[in-house]
């Protein structure tokens, strides 16, 4: 930047700024001096907006394009999903407004003063709890990822962006009470083996949770990233089962039925079961296995020859990520990526690898290894076992193809 910048005529300055805006963060084809702002920009020449001019802050107007990725042209939007814009996010925490959505009966508008949680079934003391009651229990905060079990389906891998492909995963700090604490308050009877959770939505969504999970790390959550849950994430109360498939983490929780058997509800028989090539379907496939994706550079971005930091996210429902390997030569060789500390149990882990692109077409990809030694499989290896019809639990490696012009595209397509 030079002092001369301030003397650029207004019209030219406008053109320069427009060009800079159009180029975007990854492309960077404009010359540095063209993209530089004026030496003393307008926003330094007068006071900015008043303190408190936004009582609940929102992103800069220049970030208006950063939104949930809502699929177009669905038959209906009551039971559907929207994705987090993974390729535009940094770190491991998903902003609450960009957390992925999957609802089965729309988003209920619940008055917390009228919300109750009923605990019944195989308990000594059936209980009704208000939200005030629930917040009186000892609380805990943990950072956990949450992922929809169909992220993406095996036949839905033609998306363009990282979000299109794997945007049904997000991560947050959750605050609530241990489910074990609340079950203890009601007193478990010896025959108790499962807890059937029901949401207060128009689907009255029901999933059965094995008691062992309920007594382990399961939470009843009322806050996310420091503030109360958003309606899309289950306000005022939800179940949080670290590492388990998203829909079991019942939102808008209103009832826990402690039972000897699962409910065998629609959502754990006809849905969220994995159809195998022999016609059998796997049932109670709870854990989300290790997975990773490069979010930058990724689909629809364009890069130039030279230095790039490859970065992305990895996670596993079985604990911590041990390592992430990255290939920049289409799978011939794999390098160890650096993991951003802290590497947390059942949370997203950010990985990075410095890379200099020589301008020749190639394919880049990442694969995660978790603390159990499990290695994220290729799509070929995964579908060799499961076929293409199981829909759920596709955790395959996502390859990004980079063309000679630097355009990054889905390596499956």
């Amino acid at each position, binding site marked *: 930047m030079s002092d001369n910048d301030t003397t650029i005529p207004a019209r030219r300055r406008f053109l320069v700024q427009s060009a800079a805006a159009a180029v975007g963060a990854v492309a960077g084809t404009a010359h540095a001096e063209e993209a530089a702002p004026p030496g003393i920009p307008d926003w330094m020449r007068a006071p900015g907006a008043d303190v408190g001019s936004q009582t609940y802050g929102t992103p800069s107007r220049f970030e208006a394009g950063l939104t949930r990725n809502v699929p177009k042209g669905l038959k209906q939007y009551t039971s559907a999903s929207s994705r987090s814009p993974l390729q535009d996010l940094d770190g491991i925490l998903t902003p609450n407004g960009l957390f992925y959505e999957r609802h089965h009966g729309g988003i209920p508008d619940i008055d917390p003063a009228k919300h109750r949680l009923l605990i019944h079934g195989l308990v000594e003391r059936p209980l009704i709890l208000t939200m005030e009651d629930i917040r009186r229990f000892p609380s805990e905060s943990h950072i956990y990822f949450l992922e929809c079990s169909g992220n993406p389906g095996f036949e839905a891998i033609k998306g363009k962006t990282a979000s299109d492909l794997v945007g049904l995963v997000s991560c947050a700090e959750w605050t609530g009470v241990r489910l074990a604490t609340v079950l203890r308050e009601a007193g478990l009877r010896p025959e108790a083996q499962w807890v059937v959770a029901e949401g207060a939505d128009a689907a009255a969504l029901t999933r059965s949770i094995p008691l062992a999970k309920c007594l382990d790390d399961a939470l009843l959550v009322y806050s996310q990233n420091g503030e109360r849950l958003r309606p899309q994430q289950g306000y005022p109360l939800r179940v949080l089962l670290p590492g388990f498939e998203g829909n079991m983490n019942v939102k808008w929780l209103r009832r826990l039925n402690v039972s000897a058997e699962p409910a065998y509800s629609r959502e754990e028989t006809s849905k969220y079961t994995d159809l195998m090539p022999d016609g059998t379907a796997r049932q109670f496939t709870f854990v989300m296995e290790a997975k990773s994706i490069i979010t930058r550079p990724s689909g629809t971005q364009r890069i130039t020859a030279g230095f790039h930091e490859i970065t992305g996210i990895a996670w596993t429902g079985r604990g911590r990520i041990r390592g992430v390997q990255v290939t920049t030569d289409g799978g011939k060789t794999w390098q160890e990526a650096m993991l951003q500390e802290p590497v947390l149990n059942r949370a997203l882990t950010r990985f990075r690898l410095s890379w200099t692109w020589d301008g020749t077409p190639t394919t880049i990809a990442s694969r995660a290894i978790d603390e159990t030694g499990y290695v994220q*499989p290729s799509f070929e290896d995964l579908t060799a076992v499961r076929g293409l019809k199981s829909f759920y639990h596709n955790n395959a490696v996502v390859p990004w193809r980079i063309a000679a012009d630097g355009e990054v595209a889905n390596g499956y397509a």
Partner: protein
Amino acid sequence: MATREFRAFAATLLLVDIAGSALGAERFEIGRPATEAEIAAWNIDIDRDGRKLPAGHGSVAHGREVFEAQCASCHGQKGEGDTGEQLAGGQGTLASAKPVKTVGSFWPYAPTLFDYIRRAMPMNAPQSLSDGDVYAVSGYVLYLNGLAVENAVFDAKSLAAIRMPNRDGFVPDPRPDVKP
């Protein structure tokens, strides 16, 4: 019970036993007791064997009327699917290259049909049908799948007696199943 299923079950029992004894100790005296009447009003869970199905009954003929008025606009006149899921057909396709998952081809337990329709359907007005209407519509969907006769009347006993074609089609989770 399959061996693997039994092992998982036994492991769960063991865990619960350990946790159960450790959990006995502390209580906070938070919340209030729920009455039997409150529980009965809230609890709409049906088990797979139909032991929790409520009183009441409904005929396939009445089910057709309810279905055509409240269900067909999304699921099609014969359950062939539209904005709503396909409900009928597909039997024998699960192991094929184009499996069609419907109530008749895929759902393992008929009482689950009652549970789901009562709690979640019709999508624009869930929990609006009477128990008799839910029996009727459940029966009509079974009829559309060739699993009930046209003059059938369903209640707790007869719905629980239906053996769904894919009852034994589900297996436990064997993962991790893909080796590097």
